[in-house]
């Protein structure tokens, strides 16, 4: 069982044209420079942007099919979506946010506990740190028991240490889930760490040569480092 998508969308600067697949229980990392179309791709998967052409299918459910005129709204795709920056509801506490679309309150408590937010559950988003807000955003997305998790550069606004901590926590929790995860980032280390598969997107298209270029070892790199890099890239693909 997997998520498959064939997407075409004309933007102001280029045409996005990609095909992607993500099996259940795996994480697909979309990596690319800023403005390469990654966010538009994940927004198309969520139903927040409509592709010009294509098809998005998860298990037997057709989310989008331009040839048949099918386009499920985001509400019917049963997603977990974590936005690039803080999109928590400012009028609710962290608990209220995490439980916003939850079906099981015990699951909310467990998630808040896992992410170390139990003591902050009654605080408003504007009263906690950026890292805590994004942890809560991940709780909110997972608490609704989604059939697909989409994360759009969720930790890009955070400092390096917090970002590393959060991605470790995220990896730990997604490894226990059976749904596909699509993770957008512009950080190559993050993509290689989180993704079972890494898909480089440049100018709206898959560009593996770009990935090779940016991860190429500098002149004079020793053989051991080169071998480690080759192994990691092979694993990533």
């Amino acid at each position: 069982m997997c998520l498959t998508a064939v997407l075409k969308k004309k933007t102001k600067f280029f045409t996005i044209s990609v095909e992607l697949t993500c099996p259940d229980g795996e994480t697909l990392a979309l990596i690319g420079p800023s403005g390469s179309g990654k966010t538009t791709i994940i927004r198309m998967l969520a139903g927040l942007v409509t592709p010009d052409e294509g098809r998005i299918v998860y298990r037997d459910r057709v989310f989008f099919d331009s040839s048949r005129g099918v386009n499920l709204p985001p509400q019917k795709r049963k997603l977990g979506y974590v936005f690039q920056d803080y999109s928590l509801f400012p009028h609710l506490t962290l608990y209220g946010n995490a439980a916003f679309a939850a079906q099981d309150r015990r699951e909310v408590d467990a998630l808040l506990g896992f992410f170390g937010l139990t003591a902050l559950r009654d605080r408003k988003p504007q009263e906690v740190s950026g890292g805590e807000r994004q942890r809560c955003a991940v709780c909110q997305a997972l608490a609704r028991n989604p059939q697909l998790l989409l994360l759009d550069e969720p930790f890009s606004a955070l400092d390096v240490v917090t970002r590393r901590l959060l991605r470790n926590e995220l990896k730990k929790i997604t490894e226990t889930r059976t749904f596909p995860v699509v993770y957008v980032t512009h950080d190559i280390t993050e993509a290689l760490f989180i993704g079972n598969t890494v898909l480089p997107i440049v100018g709206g298209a898959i560009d593996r040569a770009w990935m090779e270029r940016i991860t190429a070892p500098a002149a004079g790199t020793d053989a051991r480092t080169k071998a480690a890099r080759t192994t990691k890239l092979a694993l990533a693909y």
Partner: protein
Amino acid sequence: MELLPLYLSAKLATVATLILIGIAAPLAYLLTNFTWPGKSFVEALVNLPIALPPTVIGFYLLFLLGPKGFVGTVWENLFGGTLLFTFTGIVIASIFYSLPFAIQPIKASFEKVDPRLKESAYVLGLSPTATFFRVIIPNSVHGIAAAAILVFLHTMGAFGVVLMVGGSIAGETRVASIAIYEAVESMQYEKAWALSLAFIPIGYGFLLLVNRLTRK
């Protein structure tokens, strides 16, 4: 001081404001968050009272609410009786008259809500209606309260429209603004002063409250 006209003005403003917020909030949501055919025509129509003199609006409403007018006929068929020269009539007239003054500030407060919150609600499974009640309204409370106060004050001061539709029936349609006009006409300046002075603290106090609400 004769308190009945002031009481009637406050009653009219309170009823009209409550109804107007109920009408204006969903309409402002439709105008700010969705695109639909004829949207700009509807928006211009609800804003039309801003561009018309109150007596002109009152004149049209006199016919619309009258026994041969559309609203007047429907009212008579449903409830019997007439709308002209009644309190209900001046409430309906005030709603038409003050609608743009409710729509504009509510629209502005909805536009201030981060659009990402709406997307966030959608991906969490909320319908546009549920998003309105669970996300948009709670994040626009100050703006809606400010709009309610402005509409209340605007209706408190209504004159031309109320006079045209309601005339001046004591205890029914003779609101404070009409009582002041009549007092001046009959050279009862003391009465006019007393009623006019009452408007200053009411208006000033409410405007201070609006400043406080819109600053948040």
